[in-house]
C-alpha cells in the first residue's frame, strides 16, 4: 500500500546572525544551510496495517507524512501510495487518503458539522447511499449526534477531534494519516477515538499511519512501529520485538525531599544507569533508567538513598514509552543495529 524507497528531503534554511544587526544583514546577504529533514528513509506498509510512526519533535515525522500525502515533493527517492506517486498526482492520491493533522482543522470553521460533511460528500463524490450509511455508523460510534448542528468553531477540543476523525474516514479512504489525533484529549475521548480507529481498520481494512507522543495509543492500536530519529529510521518492527530487546530495561522514579538543580548520578552507578531527561520543570523528581542485566534495582535504590534524601520511589518495567525515551536520548548505538532487527 505504501512503498517508500530511499526517501530524502532537504530544506534550505537561511542562516542569520543573532540580534537586530543580524536581521538587517540577512536582508542583503544571506547564507543558506541545508537541513536534512529526512535522510534515506525506506519502508513498506501493507494494505490494512496499522503502523505507529514515532520520533521526537523535529525527527522528520511530519515531513515524511507531507511527502506521503503529496503536500511536499521529495528531494530524492521514491514514494508510492496505492500505486500512485502522491506529489505527481496529488488530486488522484487525495481521493484515496484521509488525514487528521492534530491541531489544524480539516472542517469548515463557520458552518455546522453536518453541513461540513455534506460539502465533503460532494468534494469526494461519495454516493448518497454510502454517505448516509457511513455517517450513521460514525454518529453511533463517535457519539456525534448532539454535535452535528453546531458550528466547528464552537466545539470543544475533544468534540472537534471526534468530528475531524469522522471527516477523515468519511469517504472510506484506503489510507489514513493521523498526526497526533489524541493530543490534549481526556482519557474517555482517547479511548473512544482509539476504538473508532480499530473499528474502521477491522471493517474497511483501512491502512493507518499514526504519529503520536502518546505511547498508549501506539500500544493499543498498532502492531508495528517505525521509530525515526534525526531523519533516519532507527527501528522498524513489531512492538513485541522491541519489548523483548529492551525487556531488561527498568526505570525507577525517585521523589526527593528538596529540588536539585543539576542532578548527577552517584559515581558508583554512573556507568550502568542514565537519567532520563525531563520535559517538565519539576526538580523534585528524577527518573533513572538502567538494564537489569547490568545492575540490580536494589543496588540503584540503595546507592541513591545513600547520596540523596529520597522520599518515595516507583519502579516501572519495560513500557514502550520508556524504551522509546531511551532510544531518543541514546540512540540504538551499542545495543542493536537497525539491520539486525529486520
Amino acid at each position: 500500500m505504501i512503498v517508500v524507497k530511499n526517501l530524502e528531503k532537504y530544506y534550505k534554511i537561511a542562516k542569520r546572525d543573532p540580534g537586530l544587526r543580524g536581521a538587517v544583514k540577512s536582508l542583503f546577504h544571506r547564507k543558506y544551510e541545508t537541513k536534512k529533514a529526512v535522510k534515506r528513509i525506506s519502508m513498506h506498509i501493507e494494505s490494512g496495517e496499522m503502523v505507529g510512526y514515532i520520533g521526537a519533535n523535529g525527527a522528520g515525522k511530519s515531513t515524511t507524512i507531507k511527502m506521503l500525502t503529496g503536500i511536499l515533493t521529495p528531494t530524492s527517492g521514491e514514494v508510492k501510495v496505492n500505486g500512485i506517486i502522491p506529489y505527481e498526482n496529488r488530486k488522484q492520491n487525495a481521493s484515496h487518503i484521509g488525514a487528521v493533522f492534530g491541531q489544524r482543522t480539516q472542517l469548515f470553521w463557520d458552518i455546522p458539522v453536518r453541513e461540513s460533511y455534506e460539502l465533503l460528500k460532494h468534494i469526494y463524490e461519495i454516493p448518497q447511499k454510502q454517505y448516509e450509511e457511513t455517517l450513521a455508523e460514525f454518529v453511533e460510534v463517535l457519539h456525534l449526534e448532539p454535535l452535528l448542528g453546531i458550528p466547528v468553531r464552537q466545539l470543544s477540543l475533544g468534540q472537534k477531534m471526534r468530528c475531524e476523525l469522522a471527516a477523515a474516514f468519511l469517504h472510506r479512504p484506503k489510507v489514513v494519516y493521523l498526526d497526533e489525533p489524541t493530543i490534549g484529549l481526556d482519557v474517555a475521548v482517547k479511548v473512544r477515538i482509539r476504538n473508532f480507529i480499530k473499528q474502521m481498520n477491522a471493517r474497511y481494512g483501512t491502512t493507518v499511519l499514526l504519529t503520536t507522543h502518546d505511547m498508549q495509543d501506539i500500544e493499543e492500536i498498532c502492531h508495528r512501529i517505525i521509530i525515526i530519529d534525526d531523519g533516519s529510521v532507527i527501528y522498524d518492527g513489531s512492538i513485541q520485538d522491541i519489548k523483548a530487546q529492551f525487556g531488561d530495561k527498568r526505570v525507577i522514579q525517585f521523589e526527593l525531599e528538596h529540588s536539585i538543580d543539576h542532578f548527577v548520578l552517584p559515581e558508583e552507578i554512573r556507568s550502568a544507569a542514565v537519567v532520563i531527561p525531563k520535559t517538565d520543570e519539576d526538580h523534585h523528581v528524577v527518573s533513572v533508567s538502567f538494564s537489569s542485566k547490568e545492575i540490580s534495582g536494589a543496588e540503584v535504590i540503595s546507592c541513591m538513598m545513600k547520596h540523596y534524601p529520597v522520599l518515595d520511589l516507583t519502579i516501572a518495567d519495560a513500557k514502550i514509552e520508556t524504551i522509546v525515551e531511551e532510544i531518543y536520548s541514546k540512540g540504538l548505538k551499542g545495543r542493536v543495529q537497525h539491520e539486525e532487527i529486520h
Partner: protein
Amino acid sequence: MLTRYLKLYYLFCKQNLKVMMEYRMDFLLGVLSVMLQQFAGIFFVKIVFDHIHQLNGWTFYEILFIYGIAATGRSIHHIFFDNLWTLGWQYIRPGKFDRLLIRPINPLFHFIADRLQQDGFGQLFIGIIVISTAMPHLDISWGVLEFFILIVMIIASGFIFVAINLFFATLSFWMVDSLPIVWTIFNLSDFARYPLTIYHKGIRHLLTWIIPYGFTAFYPAAYFIEGSGFQKLALLTPVVAIVSCVVAYWFWNKGLKAFTSTGS
C-alpha cells in the same frame, strides 16, 4: 468536469451565504461601510467639478462613468475573489493551505470558493447606480449591443482585478505573506478611475501594458465616449483580461510547485 465545479461552487456559496446571514450585523455594516467609502470618492469628484467644467477635456459624467465601471468591475473581484488577500496570513502561515492540497479538487478553486465577501455587494450597488446615472449623459444611444458590450467590459474589468491580485498574492508561496505588495499594487488601480490622459506617459504605459489596470475602467469606459480616441484600444479589454488570467494562473502554478518543494 466544469459542471462538477459549478455545482461545488454553488454548494460552497450556499454555505457562505448561510454564514453571512448568521452574522447579519456584519453583513449590513460591511455593505454600508463600502458604500460610504465609494460615495466619498464620488463626492470628491463632484466637488472638483463644481469649480471646473472639464478635466483635461473630460466632463463630469464621463468621469463618473469611468468611476462606475471601476466600482462594478471591482465588485466582482470583491465579492467572489476576496480570499486572494488572505493567502499568506490565513492559509500559508498557519499551515491551513495544506488542507487544500489533500482534497481531490483544484486548490485554487477551493481557496477562492472558501469565501464570499458580503462587503462587495455595497460596491456593486454603488457601481450600478453610478453607471446608470452617467449613462444618459453620454453621447451614445444605448441599444442591446451597447449593453452587451458594457457587460462584457465590466466582467473583463473584474477579471483583470482578479488576475493582478492573484499574480501578486502568489508571491506568498515564496515569501510567506505578500500582502503589503498586493496592497501597494492594488492601490495603483485608483489611478485608473480617472482618464489616463491626465497622467505622464510613463504612468500611462505602466497602467496599460505592465499592470493593466487601465483596462479595468478607463479604456472600457472610453469605448462609449465619442471622440475619446481610445475606442480601438478599448476593444482589447476582454483579450487583456484573458491574457492576464492565463499569466496569473501560470504564475500561481509555478508558486504552488515551489511551495510543494520547499514547504513553509
